[in-house]
């Protein structure tokens, strides 16, 4: 059909004269088009369009311009906009033209509107009345164009205005009106689904419309509806099947044919709908087998459009519940495609194959030779699609060859977009299937040097995390790390100026962390290599920060080098570097401090990330005291912004030193929002400074780890590099050798292809496919990531990205595919996705034995420091008599050992038995453990413990009945006690019955008291949450308490005393006010607001529970009195 556009520019002069009739062209438009065709440069174009636009401007403002001229002006404006020049002053005239013009002008007016204005443009509101008028016009053409524009651009808010009219049109006698009405409703459904919910029945009527065009339009709606909820439309399967049968059977009017194929695009649409309906649904699938079979059979004609239908059909066959016979036919079709000499068909065949191998990897085996040919195809698109296919069939056996192929392709590729997508896949495959450490590190080196700074952030993140977190075996981890260190030292000894920043960052981090693993390497050498990098101009300041962090971590002993470096950097222009140089100097001189800040080999898992940023509280309170406006969450700011837009009708209030208006003060004023007077007082700055000094100084320290892990920054692109790859595998080695040799004979070439094939398709055999249908022996990923609580957001980000483009199917999709067949091997990452339980809720230091561990985490390398807070556990002070036998705690069951507990106190004893108890604080209950010790030399039989306490609920108990208690042994029983309603003190009584001699039962009574304090748990909330919660609580109590004035900071001392006694959580201290939160086990919260009021502490408690504040107040009073 290349003769279609055969007239050329040489015919131009004649054409200008010969335009006649309806196509008559006015002078100005003709002139413009002529000038456009004669343009030779961008500069000329600019001048021309500028002139044109000013001419248009003049014309549109002239009152003498007729509607006919206006139509021509609109076309000229379209030209200007098409060439990229703004003609927005004509928009209003387009609307006017649609309003006032005759039929033809109106159409052009509408057309201009649809081209110029996008959805949401405010001028569209001016169109609504015109549309309304035209929808009611008796002229069908006007109705038609109004419906067209409604389906293209229409303000969402105005849908209700036109909806009834459009709905009416569904029963219009003319098919074109009905068709356009359906399409308009489809548009409404897309932009405002709720508005058209009530007319779903009418969609159904449209589907059964006698006109095929109307029916076809309704399919757009159904495709969308079914995509959203396939289950609701299963009953329509029969209808769709019937329609497809009719289309296939040639029942449509002949003008629906395209090249003698009946309504091909309609067939495609129907096939898509059917595959959605039949997916994972056997009974629905069975309804469509016949028509799919027929569809496959019909498409025998040799024309592109039949192949397009076939492709859709094949996809449907592989999507729905499988039927062997159909699968076989579909597979044959794919074969024909892939083998076709027509390149477009080959492409489609590869695409189909890529889709199909997810369901049946064996199919790739059948076409392995073709795939290999395609891999070396001269067509970039074909190659790219083949790599996509190979990516899908990668397993542990063929990974080296496939990755090598991908890297080869990437080295010769210069399209950024392709590189980003493909390099991410290489990294993914490497991580998942790496056969050994050296290959993995080498491949990642290639990934970093090829992908460079184009890489998606998560590639270096994942890599570093993998190195850092390691697997179960420390030895293996260290080997991997060691290999990385060796490899990087080699890289750094070579030319480094071309290396991407991201690679340099990865290398410096690894060297900083793990260089010590390599005994044979001189540390001076490492320092020298890293320092060398600092001198390079191409190294960005971001990377310098990484390098300096690494240098900080390299162990002591090289003070002279480090001091030189710090000295030379201390005059750097970059304040961040200067700051780091300072730190470097300090740390290198004080090895104790360094040991504390950067402990070697601190474990990575379980790092507490304080997402509430409470370590900044000191800074915040200081800022507040200095007059800064309190923080407002984004939504609140948004709201206020909206409010600001409206006219302010309230009289201006008195101006205050601190903007009160910015705090949203409600009638129930929140203590967190307002501390104006206290904030302005003199000593608050001093206080907050003190608060700040207990934490690490974090200003100036580059934050490279955030809530979601490592936060790399994009840097200037460095040219990608070819790394000499040491990871050449036998097969590809041979291949590489091949290329250097003069062209070998065809037969040997073929042989090589065979060889390549065997290495590419290994593991896809009958018994060992990654097929969903068959079983699989694909090994679990080599590098298994440990679940991380904070990974959730990053991995959800990935999935979002993947949904944007399925070509770049990211980890999540493939994971789910690969893991789909092994239910017992849930990917660790996906588990953590749902792990939203923030650690901090249980973290407020209940566990004493965690103490050391946490401190160690807190001191982990500086690079991690940014987000951490040292969580100090509160010490539980026992107010009961001193412990009798603390060694009894060793007898606690293993699962309870880690819980914080009180001292062991003696309950009672008699000559035979002695009873002690210990309280264990679990989040949701109090565990009362009773140790029953046999003090005699004989066995005691039938020991039974009976505990009663009316105020408490026993959630569970264990071990309270024993058949016998050996001589001199101790048995443990424990009760989980719940307190639903608070009481100041509860007393419990119990008895132990036992038999020293058969038939002779002794009973030993015991009693004890528990205090409410035992049931109070810290409630970890942020200041913001506290504020919200405060406003929602109803029961409050106020009281003045004693202030502990014996220390420099009375408020802080008092609150700490309370915290220690009662396990409260101090949320925030701002100036002379402090907010504290706790809860009754995992039940009702209680918020405490404390303010220094002279020599007293004004305490204000709120809780949803009416009595809880009183009890907590009581205990606070007692705690302070005892202090």
């Amino acid at each position, binding site marked *: 059909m290349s003769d279609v556009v055969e*007239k050329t520019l040489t015919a131009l002069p004649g054409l200008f004269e010969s335009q006649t009739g309806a196509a008559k062209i006015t002078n100005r438009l003709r002139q413009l088009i002529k000038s456009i065709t004669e343009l030779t440069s961008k500069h000329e174009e600019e001048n021309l369009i500028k002139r044109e636009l000013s001419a248009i401007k003049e014309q549109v403002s002239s009152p003498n311009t007729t509607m006919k001229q206006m139509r021509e002006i609109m076309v000229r404006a379209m030209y200007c906009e098409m060439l990229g020049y703004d003609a927005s002053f004509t928009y209003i005239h387009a609307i006017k033209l649609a309003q006032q013009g005759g039929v033809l002008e109106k159409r052009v007016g509408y*057309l201009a509107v649809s081209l110029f204005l996008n959805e949401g443009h405010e001028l569209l509101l001016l169109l609504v009345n015109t549309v309304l008028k035209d929808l009611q016009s008796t002229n069908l053409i006007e109705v038609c164009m109004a419906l067209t524009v409604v389906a293209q651009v229409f303000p969402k808010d105005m849908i209700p205005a036109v909806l009834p009219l459009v709905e009416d049109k569904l029963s219009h006698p003319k098919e074109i009106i009905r068709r356009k009405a359906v399409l308009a409703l*489809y548009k409404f459904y897309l932009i405002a689904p709720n508005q058209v919910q009530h007319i779903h029945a009418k969609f159904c009527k449209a589907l059964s419309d006698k006109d095929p065009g109307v029916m076809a*339009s309704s399919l757009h709606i159904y495709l969308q509806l079914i995509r959203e909820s396939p289950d609701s439309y299963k009953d329509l399967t029969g209808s769709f099947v019937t329609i497809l049968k009719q289309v296939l059977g040639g029942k449509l009017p002949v003008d629906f044919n395209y090249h003698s194929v009946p309504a*091909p695009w309609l067939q*495609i649409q129907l096939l898509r709908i059917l595959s959605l309906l039949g997916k994972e649904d056997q009974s629905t699938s069975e309804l469509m087998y016949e028509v799919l079979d027929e569809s496959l059979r019909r498409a025998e004609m040799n024309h592109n459009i039949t192949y397009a239908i076939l492709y859709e059909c094949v996809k449907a066959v592989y999507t729905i519940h499988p039927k062997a016979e159909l699968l076989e036919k579909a597979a044959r079709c794919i074969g024909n495609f892939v083998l076709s000499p027509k390149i477009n068909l080959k492409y489609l065949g590869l695409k189909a194959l890529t889709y199909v191998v997810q369901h049946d990897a064996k199919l790739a085996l059948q076409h392995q030779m073709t795939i290999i040919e395609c891999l070396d195809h001269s067509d970039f698109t074909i190659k790219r699609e083949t790599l996509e296919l190979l990516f899908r069939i990668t397993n542990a056996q063929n990974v080296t060859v496939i990755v090598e192929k991908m890297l080869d392709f990437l080295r010769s590729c210069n399209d950024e977009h392709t590189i980003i997508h493909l390099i991410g896949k290489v990294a993914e495959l490497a991580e998942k299937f790496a056969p050994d450490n050296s290959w993995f590190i080498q491949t990642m080196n290639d990934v970093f040097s090829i992908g460079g700074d184009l890489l998606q952030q998560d590639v270096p993140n994942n890599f570093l995390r993998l190195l850092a977190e390691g697997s179960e075996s420390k030895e293996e981890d260290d080997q991997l790390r060691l290999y990385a260190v060796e490899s990087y030292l080699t890289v750094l000894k070579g030319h480094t100026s071309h290396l991407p920043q991201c690679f340099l960052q990865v290398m410096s981090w690894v060297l900083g962390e793990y260089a010590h693993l390599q005994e044979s390497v001189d540390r001076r050498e490492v320092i020298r290599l890293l320092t060398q990098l600092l001198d390079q101009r191409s190294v960005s300041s971001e990377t310098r920060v990484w390098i300096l962090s690494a240098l900080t971590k390299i162990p002591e002993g090289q003070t002279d080098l480090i001091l030189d470096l710090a000295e030379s950097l201390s005059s750097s222009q970059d304040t961040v570097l200067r700051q780091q140089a300072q730190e470097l100097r300090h740390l290198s001189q004080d090895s104790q401090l360094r040991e504390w800040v950067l402990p070697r080999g601190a474990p990575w898992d379980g790092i507490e990330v304080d997402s509430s940023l409470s370590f900044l509280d000191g800074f915040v309170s200081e800022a507040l005291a200095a007059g800064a406006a309190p923080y407002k969450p984004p939504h609140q700011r948004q709201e206020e912004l909206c409010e600001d837009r409206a006219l302010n009708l309230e009289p201006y209030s008195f101006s205050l030193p601190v903007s009160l208006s910015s705090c949203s003060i409600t009638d129930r004023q929140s203590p967190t929002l307002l501390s104006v007077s206290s904030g302005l007082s003199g000593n608050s700055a001093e206080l907050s400074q003190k608060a700040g000094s207990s934490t690490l100084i974090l200003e100036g320290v580059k934050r490279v780890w955030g809530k979601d892990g490592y936060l790399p920054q994009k840097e200037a692109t460095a040219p990608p590099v070819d790394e000499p790859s040491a990871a050449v595998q036998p097969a590809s080695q041979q291949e590489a050798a091949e290329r250097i040799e003069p062209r070998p004979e065809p037969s040997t070439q073929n042989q090589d292809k065979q060889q390549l094939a065997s290495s590419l398709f290994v593991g896809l055999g009958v018994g060992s496919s990654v097929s969903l249908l068959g079983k699989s022996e694909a090994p679990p990923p080599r590098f298994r990531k440990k679940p991380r609580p904070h990974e959730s957001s990053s991995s959800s980000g990935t999935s979002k990205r993947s949904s944007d*483009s399925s070509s770049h199917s990211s980890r999540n999709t493939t994971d789910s595919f690969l893991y789909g067949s092994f239910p017992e091997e849930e990917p660790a990452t996906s588990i953590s996705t749902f792990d939203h339980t923030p650690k901090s809720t249980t973290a407020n230091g209940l566990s004493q034995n965690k103490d050391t561990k946490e401190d160690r985490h807190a001191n982990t390398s500086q690079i991690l420091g940014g987000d951490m807070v040292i969580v100090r556990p509160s010490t539980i002070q026992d107010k009961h008599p001193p412990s009798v036998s603390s060694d009894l705690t060793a007898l606690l069951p293993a699962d309870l050992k880690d819980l914080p507990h009180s001292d062991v106190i003696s309950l009672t004893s008699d000559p035979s038995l002695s009873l002690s108890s210990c309280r264990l604080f679990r989040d949701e209950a109090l565990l009362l453990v009773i140790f029953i010790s046999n003090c005699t030399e004989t066995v005691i039989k039938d020991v039974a413990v009976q505990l009663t306490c009316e105020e408490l609920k026993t959630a569970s108990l264990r071990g309270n009945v024993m058949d016998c208690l050996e001589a001199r042994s101790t048995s443990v029983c424990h009760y989980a006690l719940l307190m639903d309603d608070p009481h100041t003190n509860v007393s419990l009584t119990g008895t132990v019955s036992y038999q020293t001699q058969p038939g002779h039962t002794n009973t030993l009574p015991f009693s004890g008291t528990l205090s409410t304090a035992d049931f109070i748990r810290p409630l970890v909330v942020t200041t913001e949450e506290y504020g919200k919660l405060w406003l929602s609580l109803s029961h409050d109590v106020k009281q003045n308490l004693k202030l502990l004035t014996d220390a420099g900071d009375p408020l802080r001392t008092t609150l700490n005393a309370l915290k220690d006694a009662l396990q409260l959580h101090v949320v925030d201290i701002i100036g002379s006010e402090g907010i504290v939160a706790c809860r009754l086990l995992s039940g009702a919260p209680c918020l405490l607001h404390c303010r220094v009021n002279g020599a007293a502490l004004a305490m204000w408690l709120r809780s949803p529970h009416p009595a809880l504040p009183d009890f907590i107040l009581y205990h606070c009073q007692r705690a302070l009195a005892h202090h």
Partner: protein
Amino acid sequence: MIKFLLMVNKQGQTRLSKYYEQVELGKRAALEADVVRGCLARRKEECSFVEYKDYKLVYRQYAALFIVVGITENENELSIYELVHNFVEVLDKYFSRVSELDIMFNLDKVHIILDEMILNGHIVETNKNRILAPLLALDKMAES
């Protein structure tokens, strides 16, 4: 889904552009230049589909004029390839042997035809008679 349709000549001059997804005016010129470059770089024996950013481009050449359609990954390339041809056949029917100049001089009408075929990025009509019906009616009214 169809994201845009362009008619561009070999010199890279845009003769018609229609976007079904909002693209800022300022960015269109750069996109169009990229797209044309991508298509011009391809040889005759290579397939008619190119990857471009998140899109696939389907292009077809008629004399000096390229028609390029940007589509999403889930679209059927070959069916779009044939849709382009159907579009050209419709233009051919209306203009009787359509040329680049016909398209230039009748930009509005080509758009009206396109609006009948593709709406919001979906193929809504492929029946040639039905595509042309509204335009022919308009012409008739204008004549009388």
